[in-house]
């Protein structure tokens, strides 16, 4: 009876996850785990819901708990791979993904996840092979087509990328990820209006979708050179792990300070003044730009509506 109740709660949580209602999914899974705190599947599903809510530390704990409780379950390995991919622990993520693929070789989504991991490891050919396998298992798999479009976009093959994005949109016309990638391709081709149309549609589907908000922010950044500069800097910094980000910021500070001290040592007063003021300006800009950017974005997102002609 209790197992049946837990299964129902997990199913309901999956429905909420598909609707991107992470909070709803988390609440349901907490209820399931109150009934049985050792339910591996509930822990794994909770890990994925927490990941959706961008609660990475909690997701990591839940995914590891699920693996500890049932190390043979393919879904637990899939969830662990997902979380470790987000943690940028790519070798561990691939090891778990491989176990999940070997245990359940007919699941297209696991192949897509594997492709994402291998792509980030720089193994583009292997990533493409995994995506082709996913498409053989499930022709028209939107996640696989979207990922292929993103990879082609990264390689600046805009025509091929657009072809995959079109296929993804044909396969699933209201899919948020497909619209986001189509928007990114339009933006890369300089078609701001097209990109905005896709962003509006994606945000209309799910106003909390991180990628859709990212696309909207990128469009705004293209239109405002001053804030766009910060957006590019932010994207460049946030591509790194936390340790890498910290190293980059502290490293920049140390280099600038060393240059300032050396300029003073060699009596290059003018250069020293320029460096000091430049650094102060950079600090002030990187402090206030995100606030201005967030406010601009919040105002926009409050009024975003789909163009009737889209």
């Amino acid at each position: 009876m209790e197992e049946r109740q837990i299964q129902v709660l997990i199913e309901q949580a999956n429905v909420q996850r598909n609707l991107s209602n992470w909070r709803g999914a988390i609440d349901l899974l907490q209820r399931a785990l109150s009934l049985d705190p050792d339910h591996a599947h509930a822990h794994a599903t909770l890990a994925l819901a927490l990941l959706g809510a961008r609660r990475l530390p909690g997701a990591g704990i839940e995914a590891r708990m699920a693996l500890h409780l049932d190390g043979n379950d393919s879904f637990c390995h899939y969830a662990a791979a997902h979380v470790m991919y987000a943690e940028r622990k790519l070798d561990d993520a691939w090891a778990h993904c491989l176990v999940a693929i070997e245990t359940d070789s007919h699941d297209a989504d696991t192949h897509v996840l594997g492709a994402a991991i291998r792509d980030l490891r720089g193994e583009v050919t292997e990533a493409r092979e995994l995506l082709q396998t996913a498409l053989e298992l499930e022709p028209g798999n939107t996640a696989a087509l979207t990922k292929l479009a993103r990879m082609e976009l990264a390689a600046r093959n805009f025509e091929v990328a657009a072809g995959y994005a079109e296929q993804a949109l044909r396969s699933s016309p209201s899919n948020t990820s497909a619209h986001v990638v189509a928007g990114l391709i339009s933006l890369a081709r300089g078609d701001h209006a097209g990109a905005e149309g896709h962003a509006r549609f994606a945000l209309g589907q799910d106003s909390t979708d991180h990628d859709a908000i990212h696309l909207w922010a990128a469009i705004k950044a293209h239109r405002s050179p001053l804030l766009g500069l910060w957006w590019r800097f932010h994207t460049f910094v946030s591509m790194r792990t936390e340790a890498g980000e910290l190293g980059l910021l502290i490293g920049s500070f140390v280099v600038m300070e060393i240059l300032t001290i050396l300029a003073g040592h060699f009596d290059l007063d003018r250069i020293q003044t320029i460096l000091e003021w430049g650094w102060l300006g950079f600090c002030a800009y990187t402090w206030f730009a995100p606030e201005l950017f967030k406010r601009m974005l919040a105002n926009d997102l409050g009024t975003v509506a789909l163009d009737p002609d889209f």
Partner: protein
Amino acid sequence: MSYTIADEPHETSLGAYVVSPSAPLLASMMCGAWMAWPWFAFNAIAMGSPTKKKELILCGVALAGSALLGAIVLAFVDAGWIPLGTPFKFAMLAISTWKLAFAYYISTVQARTFHVYEYYGGSVRNAGGIIGTGFWLKGIVFALSDDPLWIIIVSGGL
């Protein structure tokens, strides 16, 4: 009883005094370490952070480390191994880097809990007035002792 996720903050009676972790980080630059480390520690406690112990230890290490580094630098200056001027400035840069790195790292650790705290609708106080007061008090705190080690310990990362 509901299942508790490990990253969830606990409710505390000090919830009304929680600030964004970027506030103590800014205080470390604008006001000094005398304000930043205690503020980071207080914020961890007020937020009911599950990583409170780690954050408190980090604050302690940051403080003890700057005191130790300061003492070493001053001992080297007294012994004549570090002449005043450019070499001394480089030695002080090492201490500033130490403080800044810890302030950034503690702020990053605290931001993870802060994100969950906000997610559950926790109240957040505007820290502008506190930083302004700290900036004004900075001179008074620095003047409490004329020992150079005191200045090194309480001064900021920048």
